[in-house]
């Protein structure tokens, strides 16, 4: 079946394919360099402004970028101050990761199926939607006293708080994703013999995946935001506890170091989620970054 009308441009024979491809690659690389330069340039500018402001105002309350860099080095490798924080970065990151992803995965495995069922089953929606809308505006910090009563002092309270913070964005995005599936996809599946039970795995899950991933990204951000709150509950290790200790000890360089590490962790994990999402959603050009 030869058809000229519907053949994609790409399928047409390319002229001098190597030069064209090389040019395209070259242009692509220039674009990437530009994007990285722009993305990294702005933080560098901020650090410069920070440095100048501290120097010009002569404040002793805020350390200079250099002092923070020294603290960061000591935190990572030790050998400068040789105190309780020297060379402990990996321990703290590891502990925080456990709590962040303990809470995050707990939220994902409960919120995704629940969101799909609420989105799909009207009676569940009527049963649960008002309660969810009631609980959702309560700030996670307000749960702090109760979570300490439930779970005592320790990592479980932190995991619970992260879970709460991550739960709602995943739930709401999943519900929204399911509700916005084109109903004719269900018609098409039904006419092809798909059973009601098969719909969840074969239609609801893949069709709502883009929305689920936006929920996971937002939740990942919240999870890292909440780690400081979560680790206020009296745990000895973790990035949040480092920040809290820095505050207690009036060591602002330590506070800022902790902030930077938390931010970096959030950034790196977000890129990982985006990479997974790009992989799974390669079928959907508008969800590809």
């Amino acid at each position, binding site marked *: 079946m030869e*058809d000229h009308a519907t*053949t994609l441009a790409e399928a047409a024979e390319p002229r001098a394919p190597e030069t064209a491809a090389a040019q395209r690659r070259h242009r692509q690389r220039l674009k990437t360099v530009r994007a990285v330069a722009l993305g990294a340039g702005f933080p560098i500018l901020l650090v410069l402004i920070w440095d100048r402001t501290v120097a010009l105002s002569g404040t002793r309350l805020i350390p200079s970028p250099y002092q923070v860099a020294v603290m960061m080095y000591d935190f990572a490798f030790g050998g400068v101050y040789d105190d309780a924080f020297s060379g402990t970065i990996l321990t703290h990151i590891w502990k925080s990761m456990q709590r962040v992803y303990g809470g995050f995965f707990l939220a994902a495995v409960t919120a995704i199926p629940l969101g799909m069922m609420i989105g799909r089953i009207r009676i569940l929606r009527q049963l649960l939607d008002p309660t969810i809308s009631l609980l959702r505006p309560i700030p996670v910090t307000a749960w702090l006293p109760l979570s300490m009563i439930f779970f005592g002092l320790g990592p479980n309270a932190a995991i619970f708080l992260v879970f709460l913070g991550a739960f709602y964005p995943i739930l709401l995005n999943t519900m929204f994703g399911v509700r916005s599936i084109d109903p004719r996809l269900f018609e*098409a599946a039904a006419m*092809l013999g798909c059973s009601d039970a098969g719909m969840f795995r074969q239609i609801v899950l893949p069709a709502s995946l883009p929305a689920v991933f936006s929920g996971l990204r937002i939740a990942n951000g919240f999870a890292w935001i909440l780690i400081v709150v979560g680790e206020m509950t009296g745990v000895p290790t973790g990035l949040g506890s480092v920040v809290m200790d820095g505050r207690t000890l009036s060591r602002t360089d330590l506070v800022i170091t902790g902030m930077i590490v938390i931010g970096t962790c959030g950034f790196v994990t977000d890129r990982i989620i985006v990479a997974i999402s790009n992989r799974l959603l390669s079928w959907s050009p508008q969800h590809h970054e």
Partner: protein
Amino acid sequence: MSNEARPTSLTVRGVTKRFAVGNDEVEALAPVDLAIPQGEFVCLIGASGCGKSTLLRIIAGFEEPTTGEASIGGKAITGPGRDRGMVFQDYVLFPWMTVRENISFGPRQRQLPKGEIEGIADEFIKMVGLERFADRYPSQLSGGMKQRVAIARVLANDASILLMDEPFGALDALTREQLQNELMQIWSRTGVTAIFVTHSVEEAVLLADRVLVMTAGPGRIESDFRIKLARPRDVSSPEFNELRRDIARRLTSHLAPARA
């Protein structure tokens, strides 16, 4: 291929449909009666809102008639089933599945052995000429290719009735013509019953054994033309154009007062 010899596959008896629109009720279909033998190619034609899509959706089992019954081989239609497949105007392919996965969706639901599923997929990918595009996603295909996948998806599922709701309406003229030809070949090769909704008189006369003209307010079948021209049909022949004029007159004679 005489119609009389073939068993009636589809019967529509006294089917009506009312929709609630706000506090009002709209009568979309007046009692419709219809019998279509197996293997016939029927075009439903009429102005927007004449209920032709509603009738198609009732046959598909996507909607229930308010009164009356549609049945296949004596068995009432109670919901969507794999004996009937719909081809939508805007394709409604599963966007997260490749061409191959879309086409093998039906066979996969039947839990056939893996080799058999692949065999069916290969056969129908070949039938619509998309061998080179089997691993593409719908977003990477042109409109004509997507509609070929939609047709193959239904046929791969062994449907005996192919329901098509303005399937070529969104395509450019050249692609449309090509798909019309391909559809004719596929139809004559597979022997499926085709019910094809269209706005175009020319398309109806080109494709159909039988053209049903529907009129609105409420929707009903106004006239039933048999097209006995030999295939492939010549759109420039006097016979073709005479039929086209007759049908167009039927369409507009009821349209004009309604629009006035």
